[in-house]
């Protein structure tokens, strides 16, 4: 999704302290133009603190944060034009229709009335929300509100969009629609920072991920690299045919692999972690087949972002 190498969002040793409590500890990350950064962490990890500094709502205790070369704390007014921020709370107003709601925020951003009308049409088209333009915002479903929230964020055509939990509470259909919208925005060249607790969802759209716990950056980089770093052991599974002794097969497998072999009798499947090369695994397969083990499938079980996150969280718990 990333097409250019230009760094748009950059934080260096970003630190935020509230008295004795350190909410953010020397965070250094960067996001390139057109990239989607998945910002992951448990509750209270420091995600919102980072976001608040990036959008100019909070000042760092030390370190710097910049967007498109503009310092987030020194030039907060410029940042407001560069960033579109969608907080986790929608920010509804009573008795206001969607179009009026967007018109209000367009006016607040100083978009002239003539251009504003056209821009509202555009953002409603991008977010598939044109059909709800006359509905009252407080009566919208959560999924609808999220789409209107993104439309509002897009009004002033920001370079960077920061979305706090955009998929939270959405049903599967709405989640798919949200994913499509985010990918479309990235394809237009916008840089996106997205936080979410729904990690498989993030894994589908992110180029890079930053995992943060206790205010510290635990992992940062391209999704594949982070996965490789955090989950060096790959998991394999061998599904056996209906005939044959599963215990004997497991015994034969233990003879040629290092890790623990687990047995799922119901699924007639053997599972094992390994750091072996592809060639070594090929010889494992040969070894099993030569022992008359009836194999239906021999495949790698892809580790997902959840595994990586749990790995980091477990490490953070140990160091805490």
């Amino acid at each position, binding site marked *: 999704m990333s097409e250019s190498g230009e760094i748009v969002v950059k934080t260096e040793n970003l630190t935020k302290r509230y008295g004795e409590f350190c909410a953010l500890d020397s965070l250094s990350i960067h996001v390139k133009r057109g990239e989607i950064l998945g910002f992951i962490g448990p509750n209270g990890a420091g995600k919102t603190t980072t976001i608040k500094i990036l959008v100019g709502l909070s000042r760092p205790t030390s370190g710097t944060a910049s967007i498109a070369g503009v310092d987030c704390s020194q030039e907060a007014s410029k940042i407001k034009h560069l960033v579109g921020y969608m*907080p986790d709370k929608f*920010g509804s107003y009573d008795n206001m*229709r969607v*179009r*009026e709601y967007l018109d209000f925020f367009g006016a*607040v*951003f100083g978009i002239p009335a003539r251009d504003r009308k056209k821009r509202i049409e555009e953002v409603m088209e991008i977010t598939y929300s044109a059909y709800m333009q*006359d509905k009252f915002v407080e009566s919208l479903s959560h999924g609808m509100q999220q789409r209107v929230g993104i439309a509002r964020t897009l009004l002033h055509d920001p370079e960077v969009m920061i979305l706090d939990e955009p998929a939270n509470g959405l049903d599967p259909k709405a989640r798919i629609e949200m994913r499509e919208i985010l990918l479309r925005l990235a394809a237009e060249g916008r840089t996106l920072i997205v936080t979410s607790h729904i990690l498989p969802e993030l894994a589908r759209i992110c180029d890079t991920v930053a995992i943060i716990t206790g205010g510290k950056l635990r992992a940062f980089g391209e999704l594949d690299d982070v996965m490789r770093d955090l989950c060096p052991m790959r998991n394999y599974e061998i599904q056996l045919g209906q005939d044959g002794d599963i215990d004997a097969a497991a015994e034969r497998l233990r003879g040629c692999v290092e890790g623990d072999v687990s047995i799922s009798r119901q699924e007639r499947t053997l599972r094992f972690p390994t750091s072996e090369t592809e060639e070594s695994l090929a010889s494992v397969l040969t070894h099993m087949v030569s022992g008359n083990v009836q194999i239906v499938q021999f495949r790698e079980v892809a580790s997902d972002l959840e595994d990586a996150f749990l790995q980091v969280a477990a490490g953070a718990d140990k160091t805490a």
Partner: protein
Amino acid sequence: MINNPILGRELLGRLRSGKTLAAIVVLAVASSMLVLLRWPSGGTIDIISRGSVQVFRPLAYALTLAVMMLVPAFPATSIVTERRRGTLGLLLNSPTTPLKIYLGKLVSNVALSLLLISVAIPALAACLAMGGVSVVDQIGPLLIVLCAMALQYSALGLWISIRSTSSDSALRVCYAAVLALAVLTLGPLIVLGGLPGIPSMLAQWIAAISPLSALQQITGDQGLATLLGISTGWIHFVVASLLVTLVLATLTVRKLDPILLDRARPVGKVRDKTAKQSFLRRISYLVDPNKRKGGIPRWLNPIMVKEFRTRKFGRLHWLIRLVFGCAIVSLLLTVVVASGTIDWGVDRIAGPMVLMQVALLLLVGPSLGANLIAAEVESGGWQILRVTPISSWRILTGKLASVFWTMLLILLATLPGYAVMSFIQPAMSGQVGNVLISLFVSVLVVISISACVSAFCRSTPTATASSYGVLLALFAGTLLVWLARGKPFGPVFVERVLMFNPAAAALSEMNTPGFEQYNLTPSAWWAGVAISAIAITVFGIRIWRMTRPD
């Protein structure tokens, strides 16, 4: 009843809250201060005990005001808050019956109200000790009336709460209803009081719902009772109050049903209409409420437009109705003025008119002003506004303008009465002008203080209740000092206190009985403007700070 889980939770929860403690302390200090100021310090003793009556009177009015202010606030937000949080559904789906839920809420609030009232018993006992006040004629009836008020207003609050969609609107409506029960119930007596037979009796019973008639009898201050021809007393009030409570309780329990939660979302569809339909709608409403609104023009402050659009009654068609409604009410009052001038005189009716107008400003102003910032913070809109480039100055001016124009419209719509007064007595034109300036200053004070309070609150109900509290302390509190004029407060002190109440300036301009000796203009205007300036400055600084990075 003791085993009622709702009662236990509500009572304990509120007993543990700081707000309850604050209310108890404020009431205890205020009632004690009144007595301490009057307690004989020298060797002379007031043989005829007029002094203790003069203490008892403001104390009785202060306690009544406290019950009117404090009692309905909690029940008014109780059910609507539970519904918004989703806990009402849990309660209604439990084996607890609606009656038990209702009684739990009602009894807990009444019990707390009794606790509040009991705080003033030592002060009342001190009045008794000073002499001139008896348990049978004054203190006992007063306590019974206060308890009846607590019961009535708790039932009223719960009834309004079950019919409201948001806690701040529930508070607004509840205070309006309390005011209506106290003041508007006297209206039929003005119109029908002179007629013989059933209409007059009916008007007397409706007037009995107001605690004013009961208080007049208890305190021996029969001015208003004589003026309006009220013949009912505190016993009538207690009976009327119990009847009102019974009706409200029945209505609330009947509505306390799971179906209450089954409400459709407003569709909010703008329908395409034919030219004829559109024309008819314009004739009916002057503006078409279903027409899709155009963009906010560059010359208008978007914050102000947003404030108007987000108010239920802020849309143009509602504003037109509101202004016309006020004008009609004002003209009706004018009819009363015109028909009553032979008996009462214009200067006599002017006082109640000013009070009614100030009451209207006090009712509408805080509910609008208190929403300005607190509602924005509560809805999450403030955080979004903070990331927009709009300046704190535009937020300040937009927010204030939205309330100012509404209040000004209401004020202007209630002016025909004064126009007629000036017509009847042309010599009063100057006074009427001064009254209008005083009312304008009142508007400024109401707006600035409620906006200022709003900026320090995180929830709308808190902001609304606090605004009402502060403004009533200013407008009604100073009148309590006036009630205790002579003893313990001297004329100079009373005049200085009244200087902070622009409504008192209006009353003195109209030579309302009791206010003739005070010369409050223009000093009260300057005081009002100074209070507004300070409040707006604090409001501005607060907004500026809230828009800065943390």
